[in-house]
């Protein structure tokens, strides 16, 4: 456990962070949203100028486990605060699920360097698998999660041959072509509900029907609380899994393949095997996230999984800092909440949103929280 001074610092920092997020999520009027965003940006710039930011990073790295517990506690507190507010809970759930999907892409691109422009297509495959199984068979909802992942991985393997043989822009094209092809395929195939898409019965999980509101500790909460719990559990699982992949010989092998294939081969690293492993593992994680998203949405159709959605996943990964897990979660929150808060500006949303991403890429290319050199020990003190 950290010493008392760090304990205080970390808790204060986490408290400030979550109050800010709480205010931002709760804000409705345009004026208050703009004020929050401006003061948030101002605070971050001030941090960087007074190099407090690097002090915070050292603090966080020093007591990593404690910081993770704080983050979990903060998120649960947020859900508790908004337990009545269906919409905000839906947003929080979306942040969790998108983070899991982008962590999947992170394994592919961040570690093994395999570019995947069809992230949203595998997300959709997971979703459609869950929909088809829930409609036609009576298997429990929770089982469709791994099934969604499995189907995404299996269909992903069709792309393995071209992806392995090509590199750089050429492999970018292969996955791009698959993304464009997949959307039209979903739209045209009748047995998948065609353009109407498919609706899903609510998730049944250990006897709890996820469609009715439930009472927790005497307070009547929105049914999205249950979904948020499952999404949070999936996120924690994915976080631990990806963190352990990174901090193991597998992660090291993937990094070697990403940075310099020839040199890695000369030291016994089987380049093809690691590209296949990373690509398939990534697709499995994305497929699982897709299945859960479909259940939460309870209705999916091809226009949810287009090429521009794949771009959204890649932009999130890039903004968070390729390879950095906390960066991915922070960037996901940023990229899901900000366009939602910009609803108030309506028609100009896409213009402002893409201009912001462009500016981010030009002026902060390493991302919000760039990846630190890996330290194998859990505590980070090795």
């Amino acid at each position, binding site marked *: 456990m950290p010493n008392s001074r760090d304990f205080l610092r970390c808790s204060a920092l986490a408290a400030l962070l979550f109050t800010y997020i709480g205010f931002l999520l709760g804000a409705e009027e345009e004026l208050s949203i703009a004020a929050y965003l401006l003061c948030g940006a101002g605070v971050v710039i001030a941090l960087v100028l007074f190099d407090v930011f690097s002090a915070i990073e050292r603090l966080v790295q020093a007591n990593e486990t404690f910081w993770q517990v704080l983050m979990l506690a903060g998120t649960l507190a947020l859900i508790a605060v908004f337990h009545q507010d269906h919409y905000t809970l839906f947003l929080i759930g979306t942040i969790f699920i998108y983070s899991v999907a982008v962590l999947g892409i992170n394994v592919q691109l961040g570690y093994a360097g395999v570019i995947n422009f069809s992230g949203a297509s595998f997300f959709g495959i997971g979703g459609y698998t869950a929909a088809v199984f829930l409609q036609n068979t009576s298997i429990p909802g929770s089982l469709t999660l791994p099934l969604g992942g499995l189907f995404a991985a299996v269909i992903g393997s069709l792309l393995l041959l071209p992806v392995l043989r*090509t590199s750089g822009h050429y492999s*970018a094209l292969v996955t791009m072509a698959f993304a464009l*092809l997949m959307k039209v395929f979903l739209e045209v195939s009748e047995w998948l509900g065609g353009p109407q898409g498919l609706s899903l019965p609510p998730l049944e999980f250990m006897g709890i029907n996820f469609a009715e509101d439930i009472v927790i500790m005497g307070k009547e909460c929105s049914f999205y609380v249950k979904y948020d719990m499952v999404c949070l559990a999936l996120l924690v699982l994915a976080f631990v899994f990806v963190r352990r992949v990174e901090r193991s010989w597998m992660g090291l092998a993937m990094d070697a393949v990403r940075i310099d294939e*020839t040199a890695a081969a000369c030291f016994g690293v089987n380049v093809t095997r690691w590209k296949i492993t990373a690509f398939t593992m990534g697709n499995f994680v994305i497929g699982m996230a897709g299945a859960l998203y479909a259940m939460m949405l309870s209705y999916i159709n091809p226009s949810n999984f287009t*090429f521009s959605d794949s771009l959204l996943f890649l932009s999130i990964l890039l903004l968070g800092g390729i390879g950095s897990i906390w960066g991915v979660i922070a960037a996901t929150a940023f990229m899901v909440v900000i366009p939602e808060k910009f609803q108030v500006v309506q028609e100009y949303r896409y213009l402002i949103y*893409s201009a912001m*991403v*462009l500016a981010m890429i*030009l002026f902060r*290319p390493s991302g919000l929280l760039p990846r630190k050199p890996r330290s194998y020990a859990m505590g980070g003190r090795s």
Partner: protein
Amino acid sequence: MDISLLLQFFINGCMLGMMYALVAVGFTLFFGVLDVIVFSHGDSVMVGAFAGLTFYLLGVYAVPGLPVWASAFFVFLAGMAFVAGAGMLISRFVIMPLRAAPALNTLLATMMLGTVMREAVRLFFPDGSNPKPFPRLLPDWSWKFGDVLLRFDNLALFVAGCLLIVGVAMLINHTRLGMAIRAVAQDAEAAQIMGVNFPLIVLATFAIGSAVAAFAGLMNGLYYNEINFNLGLLLGAIGFSSAVIGGLGNVYGAILGGFVFAFLQVVGTVAMPFSSAYKDVFAFGVVIVLMAIFPTGILSERQSQRV
């Protein structure tokens, strides 16, 4: 499937192929010089079409005494000049600052730039979200051979497209500027040491590539008599696919790639039994298979990897 029908499909395929080739040439030029994929190139095509339309509406073309179709030349010139300027600005403020960044950053940055261009035209062009009619600048003659209809404006556009491509190829292969561009494409540092003004060459390449894209946009407008703010999105993806099929960095490869993709789509529509919406599924599916067979495109230059 009688012969006149086949001939008509062939003509359609050629027109489509020409448009894809013109867009693909831009992708290949930019990749050749800077090893970078400029994904806003598809939207430069759209901006070219809208620029041409604006100049037409402002009457910039109305040179007294000249017949309408002669003045079409000025609309094309104005549109291409505008987009060439825009291309130079893009290279100066988006591409060059990202030279040191990994390739993915530039790819995503240019994709976002494309979205900004699309939304800007949709919002700030008067009533931009609806399709806009494109004026018929070329005369309306057409010849009928049996059932096959050959229109003068299609023929004129196709010939103009060929001339432009041959012009670009000649410029790249037979002029001092072209030699400088190829030198930079091979090895930017070595070229600079030999006195090649690298930033100037990059600006020139972007000007040429963007002008060709503007021509494709204007050709799209004249051929379909309609332009909309969304035409750049799919055209960009197809242009990129064509450039890659042909082999990035190879101008002739881009032209071949463009026509291959066009005929894939035509075959996909004609030969496929089920609904023709599958033609994109078919076309992109073949692209994936082609990449598995030719990992660096069909006419790719053989670059041995220095170890």
